[in-house]
Structure formats: structure tokens, C-alpha cells
């Protein structure tokens, strides 16, 4: 009975992360080939910055995907747009107020998540449909509250998330890395993290072992909403201005990034670090597409096709014949 080497260098993990790492390297090389300015510190820094926001969105999506029961959160983009547009209206003159504002937007997101969780868990509405409908409700709500005119002035503290701490790494980038690392540890080592994966893997067995399946499932959606709320505020801090529906594209990307990062669509298996790597892949890809001046429509087509390919390699349904 040989013992396996330390957990983190586990062969399984390498197998999960390798595609993303290789893809990033390949894309960076391609980018350098296409444009001399691609591998500059400035450009890489901004790639990392955009990735950071997507990383948060992917973390949110990952939590829900791992929680199983065909979980997915298609309201991530809408919630992000909501807090991006409504967040700046909260006073953020002092650090204290800034902190409260963060809590407030996370609360808004959490409330949406709670409605999602309740509909999915208590009423049995499939997650895809519930969160998609919620996305429409949240977007409509945002439109109503802002009356089509988004906030103009942003607090300097909020804009400070883009500040460079050291070359290539800005405040938000470091925050994202810290968050992803911390959450990965929570997922693997703590009881609540492992409960999440167990519930996602086999909710029936989990229930029979005494785990609180309903509570954990609903909490997954609440967490996802809260993190999406946070991500939206960071987004507007980064871009400096708010536009209607600005974060809608993040929904698809968060799903794609999570899946590329090794998360199973049926639940029970996933990695936040993998999701973060997946986020980088897509941001680099998007950056290259922009360098190539590929129009928005074509970008969607490429992203969609890529997601289809990933889905068909990772996540196919059972064969009917054994």
C-alpha cells in the first residue's frame, strides 16, 4: 500500500490545469507574433486586470457549478451590470464608506442569489431557466432605477482598484489572486468546502449522510450572487464609467472559464485555480481577437464555438448502450 506524494503535486491536478496553461502560453506566443506591443508590461498588466474581474465572475460561477443539480448561474452578468451601475451611487468618500459600499453591493447580489436558490431548490425550477429569468428581472430593475442614465461620477477610492502596486500587478489583480487561493483552500480543506463538493457529486448520498443539501445548495447561489455583486463594482472601478448592460458578456465567459478549468458540469468536481487559469485564457484570446480587429459578432462566434468544443470534450452525457 504505497502512499502517494503530497496533495498539491497530485497528477490529477496537473492534468486539469495543463490545458489552460498550455493554451495561455500558446496564445501569448501568437499575440507576440501578431503585435510587437503584445508582451509589454502595460499590455500584460491590463490583461491581468481584465482577467481579475473575470476571475471573480468565474469563482461565482464555479461555486454554483460545483454545487450540482445541473447548477448554473446565468444571472452573473446581469448582477454585475446592476452593481456596476448602481454601486457608484453609494457614497464612498472614506475607506469606511468604501467598505460599507462593498458590503452593500454584495448584499444586493446575495439577495438575487437567494431568490435564485429558493426558486431552484424549493420549487424545482431548473437553474438554467431560473437564473436566466432572474437575469431579465435584474436587468429590468437596473434599467428602472437608473432610468437609463447611469452614474457619472466615481469615487477615487473605487477608481483606486486599478492602481498599480508593482509592475503588471494592480490592486485588484492581487485581490483576485488572494481570493482564488483562499477559496481553493476552503474548498479542499475545510468541512464546508468539502460538503459543497459532496453535495454536488451525489446529493442523495450526501443527504443520507446527514449533510444539509438544501441549505448548501441555496448558499451556493447566495455566494455566487454576492461575489458577482462585488465583481460588478470592481468592473466599474476599472473601466471608470458605467454603460447599460456592460457586464452581460461575463456570463458566458465565466461558464467557459470554469469548464476549461476542469469543473464538471454535473457537479462535484471543480477548481477555483483552474477557473482563474481559464479566465486568463479567454481574456488573452479576446485580446488577440481585438488586436486582429475582429468585429464583435465574430468574437461571439469564436467564443461560442470554443465553448462547444470544450463541452464536447469534457462533459458528454452517458452512452445509452453499455
Amino acid at each position, binding site marked *: 500500500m504505497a502512499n502517494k506524494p503530497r496533495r498539491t503535486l497530485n497528477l490529477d491536478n496537473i492534468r486539469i490545469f495543463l490545458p489552460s496553461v498550455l493554451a495561455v502560453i500558446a496564445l501569448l506566443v501568437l499575440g507576440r507574433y501578431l503585435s510587437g506591443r503584445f508582451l509589454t508590461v502595460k499590455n500584460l498588466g491590463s490583461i491581468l486586470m481584465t482577467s481579475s474581474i473575470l476571475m471573480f465572475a468565474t469563482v461565482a460561477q464555479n461555486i454554483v457549478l460545483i454545487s450540482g443539480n*445541473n447548477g*448554473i448561474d*446565468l444571472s452573473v452578468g446581469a448582477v454585475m451590470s446592476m452593481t456596476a451601475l448602481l454601486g457608484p451611487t453609494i457614497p464612498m468618500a472614506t475607506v469606511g464608506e468604501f467598505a460599507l459600499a462593498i458590503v452593500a453591493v454584495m448584499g444586493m447580489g446575495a439577495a438575487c442569489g437567494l431568490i435564485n436558490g429558493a*426558486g431552484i431548490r424549493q*420549487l*424545482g*425550477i*431548473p437553474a*438554467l*431557466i*431560473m437564473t*436566466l*429569468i*432572474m437575469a*431579465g*428581472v435584474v*436587468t*429590468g*430593475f437596473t*434599467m*428602472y432605477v437608473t*432610468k*437609463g442614465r447611469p452614474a457619472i461620477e466615481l469615487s477615487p477610492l473605487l477608481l483606486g482598484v486599478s492602481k498599480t502596486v508593482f509592475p503588471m500587478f494592480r490592486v485588484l489583480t492581487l485581490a483576485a489572486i488572494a481570493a482564488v487561493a483562499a477559496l481553493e483552500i476552503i474548498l479542499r480543506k475545510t468541512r464546508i468546502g468539502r460538503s459543497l463538493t459532496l453535495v454536488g457529486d451525489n446529493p442523495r448520498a450526501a443527504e443520507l449522510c446527514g449533510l444539509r443539501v438544501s441549505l448548501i445548495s441555496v448558499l451556493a447561489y447566495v455566494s455566487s450572487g454576492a461575489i458577482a455583486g462585488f465583481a460588478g463594482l470592481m468592473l466599474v472601478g476599472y473601466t471608470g464609467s458605467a454603460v447599460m448592460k456592460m457586464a452581460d458578456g461575463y456570463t*458566458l465567459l465565466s*461558464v467557459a472559464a470554469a469548464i476549461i478549468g476542469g469543473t464538471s*458540469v454535473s457537479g462535484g468536481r471543480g477548481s477555483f485555480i483552474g477557473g482563474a487559469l481559464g479566465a486568463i485564457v479567454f481574456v488573452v484570446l479576446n485580446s488577440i481577437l481585438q488586436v486582429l480587429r475582429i*468585429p*464583435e*459578432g*465574430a*468574437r*461571439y*462566434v*469564436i*467564443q*461560442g*464555438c470554443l*465553448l*462547444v468544443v470544450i*463541452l*464536447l470534450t469534457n*462533459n*458528454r*452525457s*452517458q*452512452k*445509452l*448502450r453499455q
Partner: protein
Amino acid sequence: MALARFLAKNVKRTTALPAVLLFFTLLTVNFFIMPGALSRSFLVSFLNTNTAVICLTMGASVVIIAGGIDISLGPMVSVANVMLIKLLAAGTHYSAAIPLTVLATTAMGLLNGVLVAVLRGSSLLTTFAASTVYSGIALLVMPVPGGSVAREMTAFYNGSLLGIPATVFFILAPYVVWKAFKRTPHGIRLYAAGNNPAKAYSSAVNVPAEKLFAFGFAGFSAGIGTVALTSSIGSGDPLIGAQMSMMAISAAVIGGVSLSGGYGDITGGIFGSLFLGLITVIVLSSNISSFLQQFVSGVILLLGMIGAMLFTMRRGEKARRSADRGGGTAHGE
């Protein structure tokens, strides 16, 4: 006696009843709010606005019955819409452009079907990815809304044939195709495949083929709906179909089509979308600011879905309780 048997069979098994009741109740309510609501002109214009969604709902219903789900139907309409406008602008006669459009959406539907039924991709996520692809194509074909249609198309759409509003024929097209399909042995096979693919497979049902038909049919219905929509609005818009998928699926669920597959029929879907359309009319005609309208529509959609699920849950409880009495499963090898 065939009639009596027919009635007994269908009324007992009808899942469309709630949607039908909801619709007629709301129509009556509307009559009190808005005099002239039961007039022919109102009903005709109501149908005109909703024909496209009704077609989509029929397609969505069949896919769900077959055990799948297709949320790319809306973007399919966007692609087909801009494609049709571009074809007309390029000089193609509408008698050729229209069939080409329907063919294109059917092909898109079959493509979805291949990805889901044959290659066994997850129904939800694969069609979600497909919807991005189709939206992208629509944007590539026509980045900004514009264009126009042949006068004859609009005239036909707003007119009538043999005294029946033309829009009814658009709705009839997919309806007839589905009813014909149900008259073949494939009908029950599709229902079986949707409810329990493993048991259907054991019964020598070609599960992937039945699902493929469902997706193709949905594409076909989307095509008919696109022609209706294009004739109605008279121009092209790459984003026009964005919300339609959700409307269609919610209408189907409200109409009694169970998301677990194998239950329901498109009649329910039709009344479900009529019901949702009527709600939209009521919301629009009231004096709510335009900024509030999407929110209110969204909330109503949510409430409608919640209501439909509550109703299904209660029916599910009854079925489960009787199943318990009926007996458990066999064990062993």
C-alpha cells in the same frame, strides 16, 4: 363513440388546461379593463404581435417533450431575420428568400440536434454556446438594424385568407407538421425518449433520431416565426430574438410541458404564449413608464413560472403517491 373516447382520453390527460383557463380568464379581465378587447381588430393585432413567439413556443415545446431544451431559438430568429432582409435587399424574390430562410433555421436546429442528440453534449449548455454563436453571426451579417421588406409580405401578413387572418396560417404550419408526426408511430416514441431514454432505448426506440427530429422541428418553427416577425416589423435587427428564447420556454412550461420531458403538448404551449402575450399587452397599455416595463415583464414571467411549477409539483405529488402504492422496483441481478 370514437368522439366520446377521444374526449375522455384527451380531457383526462390534458396538461394544457391551466394555460387555457389562465388565458381566457385574463382575456375576460382585460375586457373589463379595456373595452373593445374582444373586438376582431384587437384580437387580430394581438395575434400579429405574438405569432412569432407562438411559433417559437411550439418548437421549444417539442424539444422539451423530447427531453432536451434549446435556448438558441431566439438568436436563431435574429440570424434568420437579418439573413432574410439581406437576401431581399440583394434582389432575391421573396418567394425564394422565404423558403431559404426556413431552410436555414431548420439546418441550425438540426445542427443543435447533432450536437446534443448525437454527440451527447449537454442540452442546456450546448444550446447556450450555440446561442452565442448565432448572435455573433447575426451581428456580423447586419451590425446595425435596418433594411426593408417587400410590400407584399407585409400586406399578406396583415391581411387575411378566406376570411381568416393570415397569421393563423403561420401558426398552423408547425402545428400541422407536429400533429402529422404524432399520427405516426414516432409520436409515442418521441414521448418515450423524452421521458426515459434508457427504457426507450431498451424498447428499440432510436432515441437520438427522435431528439434530432425535435430540434429540427424547433428550427423549422423558428423559421416560420422569423418570416412572421420580419413581415410584421418590416426590417432587420440583429438583437431582435434575444429575449425570445426565455419567453418561449416559459410559455411552454406554463402550458403544461414538463421540463423533465415526455409530458405535455404544443396546444398548451400556444395558450401559454397567448397568456404571456396578453400580460404584456396589459402591462404596455397601462401607464407604466417604459423604464419599468422590462422589470414588470420579467417579474410576471417569474411569477408565471413559479405558478406553473407549483401546479406541476402538486400533480407530481399525486403521481408519486399512487406510484408508491403500485409497487417498488425489483432488485438483484
